[in-house]
């Protein structure tokens, strides 16, 4: 068993079919590639064929997945039949800094944990609160309140066999000035950290220094590259910066950006990281191509360093 197993964070847009049994007829209707991206059977086969044995569900997909499969358990079984296990689900702890929102945000977090348990997952990577725009700058009390929420959700998650991993976006209200303060305020026994390699770099953390400093808190990774490290406040604090108006991509496949991912893998080896690494392709125009490129880069550049 390798030390690192690879999953995909689910950035497929809605997949409308479970399985297409009339694939050839469907293709011939308009002779386009839609048939190749329209059912979970095919998509999961792509993952499995390329060695991504896990999938991290996106919460915004639940409204489609649950009616399509009937239950989280059914989806998990369907994926497992194709060699893919559900490792967890992303979650957003919206407005966690608001004291009067405490009960609601904790309830939402607990419900997400319950859903992950039904999927058979173990990880809930969690964005700590809203975007900076509209919420920031946060006061020290706000940051403490966010940490209080995470500890509360983390306690419930831990009791249910799920690891909550803080996942900071570069545009989150928790941002460079309070990122580390926030982490320190959370209970390391209950709250872990998911390093999104590109997001923390764009936010302004040095990826290798950050991992070195917090390696014992890291539960999992979102692995992706960027060519846009250390963006200024004017970008990070702007309204809706994730999708750039001119089509600029923040995120690239490993090896197509500028991050020192080989350095990261040397540190993974040094600290003997064991666990899942979710590759993310947000911003990619072609998920299948990105998946294949990533697999090539992993096998030729990164896994030879630490596997």
């Amino acid at each position: 068993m390798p030390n690192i197993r690879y999953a995909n964070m689910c950035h497929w847009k809605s997949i409308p079919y479970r399985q297409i049994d009339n694939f050839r007829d469907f293709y011939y209707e308009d002779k386009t590639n839609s048939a190749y991206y329209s059912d979970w059977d095919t998509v999961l086969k792509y993952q499995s064929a390329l060695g991504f044995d896990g999938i991290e569900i996106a919460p915004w997909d639940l409204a489609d997945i649950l009616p399509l499969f009937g239950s989280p358990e059914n989806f998990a079984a369907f994926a497992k039949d194709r060699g893919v296990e559900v490792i967890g689900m992303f979650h957003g702890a919206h407005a966690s800094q608001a004291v009067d929102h405490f009960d609601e945000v904790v309830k939402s977090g607990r419900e997400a944990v319950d859903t992950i348990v039904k999927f058979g997952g173990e990880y809930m990577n969690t964005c700590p609160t809203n975007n900076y725009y509209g919420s920031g700058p946060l006061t020290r009390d706000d940051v403490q309140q966010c940490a209080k929420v995470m500890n509360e959700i983390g306690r419930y998650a831990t009791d249910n066999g799920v690891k909550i991993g803080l996942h900071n976006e570069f545009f989150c209200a928790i941002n460079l000035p309070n990122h580390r303060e926030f982490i320190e305020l959370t209970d390391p026994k209950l709250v872990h950290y998911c390093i999104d390699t590109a997001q923390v770099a764009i936010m302004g953390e040095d990826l290798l220094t950050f991992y070195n400093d917090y390696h014992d808190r890291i539960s999992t990774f979102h692995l992706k590259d960027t060519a846009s490290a250390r963006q200024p406040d004017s970008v990070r604090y702007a309204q809706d910066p994730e999708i750039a108006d001119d089509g600029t991509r923040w995120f690239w496949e490993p090896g197509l950006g500028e991050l020192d991912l080989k350095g990261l893998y040397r540190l993974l080896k040094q600290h003997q990281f064991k666990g899942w690494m979710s590759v993310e392709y947000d911003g990619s125009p072609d998920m299948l191509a990105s998946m294949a490129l990533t697999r090539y880069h992993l096998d030729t550049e990164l896994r030879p360093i630490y596997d």
Partner: protein
Amino acid sequence: MNLDAFAISLDLINRHYQEPNRNRYEGKYFWEELYPLISASGFRSIEIPYEPVWQFGGRSGVPMNRYCINTKYETAANYREVLSAGGIYRVAGVTFDPNLFMRNDNLGFYFGATGHFANEALAHAADLGAEYFAISPSPYYGRVAHYHPNLEAEAESFTERVTELLQGLAAKAEASGVRLVLRNEFWSLFRGERIFQLLDTLPDSVKLDVDTANLTIAGISLSDFIVAHSNRIGCVHLTDTSFEDTAETWRSPNPEFPDNRATQVFRDPGTGSIDLPQVISLLDGLGYQGPMTCSARQTRDPFRALLRIRALLNTLQN
């Protein structure tokens, strides 16, 4: 009939389902390049599907709700200027469907969110100078049934709440000079003739949307329906299909994607089985002069669809 006044719905752009290059549809640059291309294909007016979902994920480059327009253009007026610069001189209508909010067993949430965003969409339609606001009165039947297994037993109270919501919208639509029309999708709780359960309780100002593919899939004779209700038609959607619902797909949670057999339910206009020229001729003969909107929902290639529709319209006499 004035073919030059026909609108094209922006629903020809696939915003939600996986396909290569779909991600570009979330960027402002894509849409601003699209408008001149629409104009180049001979359309001067558009229909906008109002989609609240884009305001929740920070994806405000998709110009399909008030939040997105205000984020990128500050005002609806500024957005209309951008459209005009691209050769689009009119927003013919705005559509709204409430499927996004049928996501749990809480009907209070569903009606609260639907009411809030439908009212916002209507106000946005007025700001854009739209002629009509076309609302789908129910989510997918099968999606409601998934979260509310006792749907049939609760149908009466559900209908009462829908009616109440629509009555409020009707008053606001009349006050704002926008025509409220009820969509009539094949997957609706109020499909086919059932739409009159609602329409008959609403003011005369509320009209019917004739959607050619949806009515056909629901088993309704297009010509009979149009003739019988010609004085109540407020909007026409020219849609096409070759789909025959032989397995009660309309009752399924995702009816636009039949689970027993994959197929493209909505075909590009002119490539399905519906005789659209005959429908246009019939409406013309009845003196219909209201909005006509072409829709290539589910197209596999929006740019080919634009030209396919233009090729179809070019075969007709103006």
